[in-house]
């Protein structure tokens, strides 16, 4: 049995794991109390986080310790720590279970991060549809406040810090950190041009750090057990555990927190294997924004940044979408293209127009009305979006498309030539 649930999901099996009593009975808020007592200084914490090797769990994989070091905690004025719980990348549902079952560990992680960067307040941006996770997180904040762990002059330390929630309202783009900032400011969630980066000009124009839910929820454990402990759980260049959300054609879809570097096939086994006794056709390993990998490549890879990159894709948010050997790739791409077209914020012309082109052309192919030149059009439009937009959404829209054409162009051609899927042949 591979080890599971060693960090973010460590309490999920307990009764009422979201209550402060359960959290505190399991070492909760011990690190926060140490921090407040002056036993752990910000520089020490940053070094420990760097040692842990943790990289941003939201998808970009940026080293967390390095990100925190960009903030000047002694600079005067307000500063903010933001948590990105706008979980909306198709295939991603890992942060939901952190907020539902272990919200206090996220609260403590946000407190510690807030202290390190010298923040006066923190906001957790939770997607608006996540009502249950929001209530659990909000309850955790209230319990922490009642316990005197949040607010003014916390436990007599002279440190003031408070946490709040901001609820989204149905816009995938707000998972992009500067769009998230705009959204908290009460505007359309359209990404900002960078630089300036949030560390110098973030929420309300103040220095701001934005981390993913899983990243922040890992911090208390990293500090409790040591950066080296965390690093050693994983592999080189990928420290620690990772919450993988496994969905699609498996017998037991769900979240699995396993060690970085776990073989893909072991993760697939944990999810009960391919459903209905079928075979694996392909995998999207990191969420809709990452390249599709055929079975033979996936079965040979391990679940860490470098191994997945070597296989030709990206770890992303760890959202593993499994497809069986009867999956129509053209239909998959039509669905993904629709998503990006629907969710494009409309700011950059190549993305706003290009995602619509991609969707309409794939839809036409899937409806049996494709033209021979359509495959070239898809490649051409993808090439014109990639790299010509402010944020990653437009690029992401082309990645699944490009990888699908790389591995399964014959399926598109079959639709164009015969007006139906390869699986429709008698």
């Amino acid at each position, binding site marked *: 049995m591979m080890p599971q649930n060693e960090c973010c999901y460590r309490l999920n099996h307990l009764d009422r794991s979201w209550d402060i009593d359960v959290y505190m009975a399991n070492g909760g808020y011990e690190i926060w109390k140490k921090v407040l007592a002056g036993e752990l200084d910000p520089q020490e914490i940053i070094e420990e986080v760097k040692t842990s090797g943790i990289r941003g769990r939201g998808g970009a994989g940026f080293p967390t310790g390095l990100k925190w070091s960009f903030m000047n905690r002694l600079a005067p004025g307000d500063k903010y720590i933001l948590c990105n719980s706008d979980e909306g990348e*198709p*295939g991603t*549902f890992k942060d939901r279970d952190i907020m539902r079952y272990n919200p206090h560990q996220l609260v403590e992680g946000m407190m510690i991060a807030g202290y390190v960067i010298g923040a006066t307040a923190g906001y957790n941006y939770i997607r608006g549809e996540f009502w249950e996770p929001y209530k659990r997180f909000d309850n955790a904040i209230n319990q922490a406040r009642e316990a005197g762990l949040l607010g003014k002059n916390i436990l007599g330390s002279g440190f003031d810090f408070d946490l709040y929630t901001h609820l989204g309202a*149905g816009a995938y783009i707000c998972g992009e950190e500067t769009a998230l900032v705009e959204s908290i400011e009460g505007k359309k*969630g359209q990404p900002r041009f960078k630089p300036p980066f949030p560390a110098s000009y973030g929420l309300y124009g103040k220095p701001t750090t934005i981390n993913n839910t899983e990243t922040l929820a890992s911090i208390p454990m990293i500090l409790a057990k040591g950066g080296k402990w965390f690093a050693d759980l994983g592999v080189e260049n990928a420290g620690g555990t990772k919450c993988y959300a*496994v969905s699609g054609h498996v017998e037991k879809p769900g979240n699995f927190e396993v060690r970085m570097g776990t073989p893909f096939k072991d993760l697939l086994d944990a999810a009960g294997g391919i459903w209905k006794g079928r075979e694996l056709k392909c995998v999207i390993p990191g969420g809709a924004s990452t390249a599709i990998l055929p079975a033979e490549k996936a079965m040979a890879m391990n679940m860490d940044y470098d191994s997945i990159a070597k296989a030709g894709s990206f770890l992303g948010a760890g959202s593993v979408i499994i497809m069986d050997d009867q999956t129509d790739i053209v239909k998959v791409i039509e669905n993904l293209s629709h998503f990006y077209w629907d969710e494009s914020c409309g700011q950059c012309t190549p993305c706003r127009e290009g995602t619509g082109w991609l969707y309409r052309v794939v839809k036409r192919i899937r409806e049996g009305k494709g033209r021979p030149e359509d495959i070239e059009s898809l490649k051409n439009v993808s090439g014109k979006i990639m790299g010509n937009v402010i944020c990653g959404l437009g690029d992401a829209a082309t990645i699944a498309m490009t990888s699908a054409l790389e591995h399964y162009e014959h399926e598109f051609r079959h639709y164009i030539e015969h007006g139906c899927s390869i699986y429709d042949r008698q």
Partner: protein
Amino acid sequence: MSSTAKNTKIITGDVKSRIDRWISNYPADQRQSAVMPALRIVQEVSGGYLTTELMDEIADYLEMPPIAVYEVATFYGNYEHQPVGEFKFCVCNSISCMLRGKDDIIAYLEKRLGVKVGEVTPDGKFSIKKVECLGACGGAPMMQLGKDYHENLTEEYLDKLITELE
């Protein structure tokens, strides 16, 4: 202002205090930050959709230009601008739900309720909406109804649910 017009104000009493609680989460000079919760709360108590008058009242209350409220209200997918059913079935339309049969679920709902996606039943009770990934792919196919998620949907499950709501 006539007393009738005054009575039609929505940001009053409980609605006002709910919005005020959100306003207090942000710095005092950043009332605009509460526009998203304000739109959600106002929509919730106004039959599930927003009108220009309601958005104007929010603009007034948060000291924002009305256009800034319209921009937000039309950007985010959860705000409605047309009547919806008392029970709005928001069915996930994204990849993991597609792989596990969301097309059949939508087709069944359309047949069972006698309306297409985007339509409302004549009694105003039900409507169906396709939404993008709701972040619960482990329970695919799934949907949102009010504040709750319903996962691992089957025709039998929907039958039971609809019968309870009818």
